[in-house]
């Protein structure tokens, strides 16, 4: 196979100041005419329409620009957005394209203009979509009910820890059951949310098969066990075949079992959490189900559970009455209350519904198969690159998705680190790769993952870019270490990142920290 031609990529770099530093005093976008006297006579002065308690005594500090300047500035910013439109093989995230047809759909007024406090008679259409999507996820997981309130995967994990608390409290066992068990390569939101909900956390280490051992689980399970929270596969990528035994062990001890389906892509239509014995599970609609992912904003962690846990779900729940009408049912007395407002991020649920219906059961299975194939194809080619090794070369079982690779050998030979390689790869139009959750347990890690979206040309290009950069690390290491060179911004000095006096996240904070440097 001949390597792909490296793209002569150049990111737009407008090098403009912040909008707060642009423009000139008095410059305006549109100048409106004064109110005609006749109108003032009837409605009074415009200012009087604002309650005195809400009026500003001083004008806010805003940039003063013409309309054209504003538009130009924001277009430039959008051109400088880094990532997610290159080749983005971002491990742990199953990045997917968000079909424009779904985007268009949710921008239509009949969706975007809805308000959750409208009378439910006027919300029947959207309630039906949410209800039907609940049914689709029930089919994929075997669970009894899904809610969409959680604003992401970690929020859904937190929903689980709150439900764990409420469940044991309802049985008078919360004082005794104060431990949650998870595994070393599970998503860090499991230990984090368990701790946030007040539980002690026991993390089982990775062992020789690529997952934690049954014996380790047996050693820690006790009458103090409140729940088990696991991913399967986790970030090592190998499916734990003992998972039913795990669930049985925890159930025998009286604990609940939660399946974090962040890594569902390779499993779609192949396993059902409830059939494995799990009490609850979570899907990320903003990843696996084709919804947009964005910095904790428009995300949804769909949380589903078995009948026994339904009374603890956050409300309101969308139900279908005997006449086929969709109703919002207030949560019951055992409910944990709200984890977020209303019924969640509905536009994302609609996108996920559209995506899942378009795929169909067959489509989901094909997608799962393609992504498993793509990841194993990548492994073969990646390991042919000198300097790239598998993080745990001992693990030879077939994987369902990503795994951790290591550039430790390359670093030892050339001094070029995985961060340098990550930066340099973005010079060729691919997005920065995912390194590893912390603490790093293998040297110089990187974790690529190819879902079903990517063509073989994209995957080959990504691998060829990595091979090219590894070769550069030997021939011209300085170029790699000082990269990126073709990106919007070049190599950053990260030394001030932990020193709040060195950065400001708002203009106000900037003025406070640097009073001498106003505009």
């Amino acid at each position: 196979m001949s390597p792909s031609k490296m793209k002569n990529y150049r990111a737009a770099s407008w090098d403009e100041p912040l909008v707060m530093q642009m423009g000139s005093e008095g410059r305006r976008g549109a100048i409106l005419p004064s109110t005609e006297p006749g109108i003032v006579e009837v409605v009074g002065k415009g200012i009087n329409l604002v309650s005195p308690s809400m009026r500003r005594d001083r004008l806010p500090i805003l940039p003063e620009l013409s309309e054209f300047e504003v538009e130009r500035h924001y277009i430039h910013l959008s051109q400088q957005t880094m990532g997610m439109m290159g080749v983005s093989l971002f491990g742990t995230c199953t990045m997917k394209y968000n079909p424009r047809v779904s985007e268009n759909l949710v921008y239509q007024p009949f969706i975007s203009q809805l308000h959750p406090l409208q009378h439910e008679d006027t919300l029947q259409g959207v309630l039906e979509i949410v209800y039907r999507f609940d049914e689709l996820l029930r089919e994929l997981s075997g669970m009894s009910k899904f809610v969409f309130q959680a604003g992401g995967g970690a929020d859904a994990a937190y929903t689980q820890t709150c439900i764990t608390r409420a469940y044991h409290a309802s049985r008078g066992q919360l004082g005794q059951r104060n431990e949650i068990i998870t595994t070393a390569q599970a998503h860090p939101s499991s230990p984090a949310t368990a701790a946030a909900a007040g539980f002690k956390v026991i993390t089982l280490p990775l062992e020789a098969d690529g997952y934690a051992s049954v014996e380790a689980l047996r050693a820690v399970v006790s009458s103090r066990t409140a729940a088990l929270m696991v991913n399967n596969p986790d970030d090592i990528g190998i499916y734990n075949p003992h998972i039913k035994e795990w669930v049985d062990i925890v159930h025998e001890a009286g604990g609940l079992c939660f399946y974090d389906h962040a890594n569902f892509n390779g499993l779609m239509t192949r396993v059902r959490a409830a059939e494995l014995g799990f009490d609850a599970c979570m899907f990320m609609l903003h990843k696996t189900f084709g919804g947009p992912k964005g910095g904790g904003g428009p995300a949804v962690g769909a949380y589903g559970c078995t009948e026994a846990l339904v009374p603890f779900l956050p409300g309101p729940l969308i139900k279908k009455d005997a006449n086929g009408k969709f109703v919002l049912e207030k949560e019951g007395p055992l409910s944990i209350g709200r984890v977020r407002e209303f019924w969640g991020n509905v536009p994302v649920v609609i996108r996920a519904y559209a995506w899942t219906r378009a795929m169909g059961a067959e489509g989901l299975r094909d997608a799962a198969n393609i992504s498993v194939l793509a990841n194993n194809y990548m492994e073969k080619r990646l390991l042919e690159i000198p300097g790239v090794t598998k993080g745990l070369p001992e693990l030879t079982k077939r994987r369902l998705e990503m795994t951790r690779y290591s550039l430790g050998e390359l670093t030892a030979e050339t001094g070029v680190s995985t961060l340098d390689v990550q930066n340099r790869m973005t010079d060729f139009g691919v997005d920065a790769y995912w390194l590893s959750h912390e603490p790093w347990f293998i040297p110089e890690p990187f974790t690529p993952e190819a879902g079903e979206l990517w063509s073989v040309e994209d995957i080959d290009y990504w691998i060829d870019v990595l091979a090219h950069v590894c070769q550069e690390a030997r021939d011209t290491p300085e170029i790699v270490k000082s990269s990126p060179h073709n990106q919007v911004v070049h190599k950053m000095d990260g030394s001030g990142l932990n020193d709040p006096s060195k950065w400001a996240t708002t203009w106000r904070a900037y003025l406070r920290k640097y009073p001498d440097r106003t505009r």
Partner: protein
Amino acid sequence: MGKDLFRLGLIINPVAGMGGKVGLHGTDGDLYERAIQLGASPLAADRAAQSLFSLKEISEKFVVLAPPGAMGYEVSKILGFTTESIPSHHQGRTSATDTQEAVKYMVLCGVQLILFSGGDGTARDIYEAIGDRVPILGIPAGVKMRSGVFAYSPNTAGELVRSFILDAKKVKVHQVEILDVAQEHSLGENSNSTWQPSRFFGMAAAPYSREYLQSAKSMSSVQGDVGIDELAQEIAQSLNPSRLYLFGPGATTHKIIQILGLEGYVGGIDAVFNRQLVGKDLGEHEILELLTRFGEATLFLGVIGGQGFLLGRGNQQLSAKVIDLVSPKNIVLLSSAEKIAKLFPVHLQVDLGDLEIEAQLEGYREVLVAPGRSTVCRVIVPKRVEAKEEAV
């Protein structure tokens, strides 16, 4: 000369790394003579030159202090650095004493960083001479390099020195473990085994290399382990005043002693009763005496990175008798989460020479990593075929 210039100590162990290629585990002691006989050649000087090469562009910013000849001066001069020679008695082959005298002298001369080329033996010699008074950084050139002072490669060592010279504030200095193969295993009988247990000697200061650690998904950077610090605080505050506490060697357990405001010994076993030190750097006999005197006790044991052993190496004072008296259920294991994450698989051996006690320790044991956070490690007893035959 050049009072304001950065003062860099350089020391090369010219015989380091020679044993590896001829199948010896290091060149400590008499092994050097055998290494030469077997045809080994020096490697540490090449590595040092490779490492220092990247400093050529900034050579006006520092002065090198090095012992004469092959121990550093030659290489530094060849690269064209301003070099001060420090006195040395050595003639021909060098010894641990030469290294130790040289680094003590460097400290007196006010060096800000000592760069050395060698292995664990050299690191240990330097540590024993100067402790953690000056940060040290190792260019990997030995056969054994388990101590935390070594850079990944000669190049990364050079880069780190360069950042240190240009802006010492940007480089973090942290405490790292000095480990070396336990004496009893460095020669003879076990040389066929592929694995050599190591012993913990103490904590040295070393510049830290991952200071720019950040990524697309995580903006955190490593600033020591907050979890284990908090755990040490929690333990220090919750000690029962009428119970005896024993602390095994290592920085993690020593942290608790420090929080209590006591002067213990990081490399040995200390004992605390009623928040007072009742024993420091104890031997087996003294521990047994304390246990008889005070009764019930808790033993805090740290997991020492790279050692692979929980009991029986580097802490032989904690004998089968001691463990029996303390009782395995009263042993509390502590580690930073990172250290445990880097052990794969998380198996630790015990070798106490007492099958009955070892059997009680075998299996999965809890390891505390932060307040309310724990993991498990698997304690393994090495198979002793002879011992079993005897038992039958």
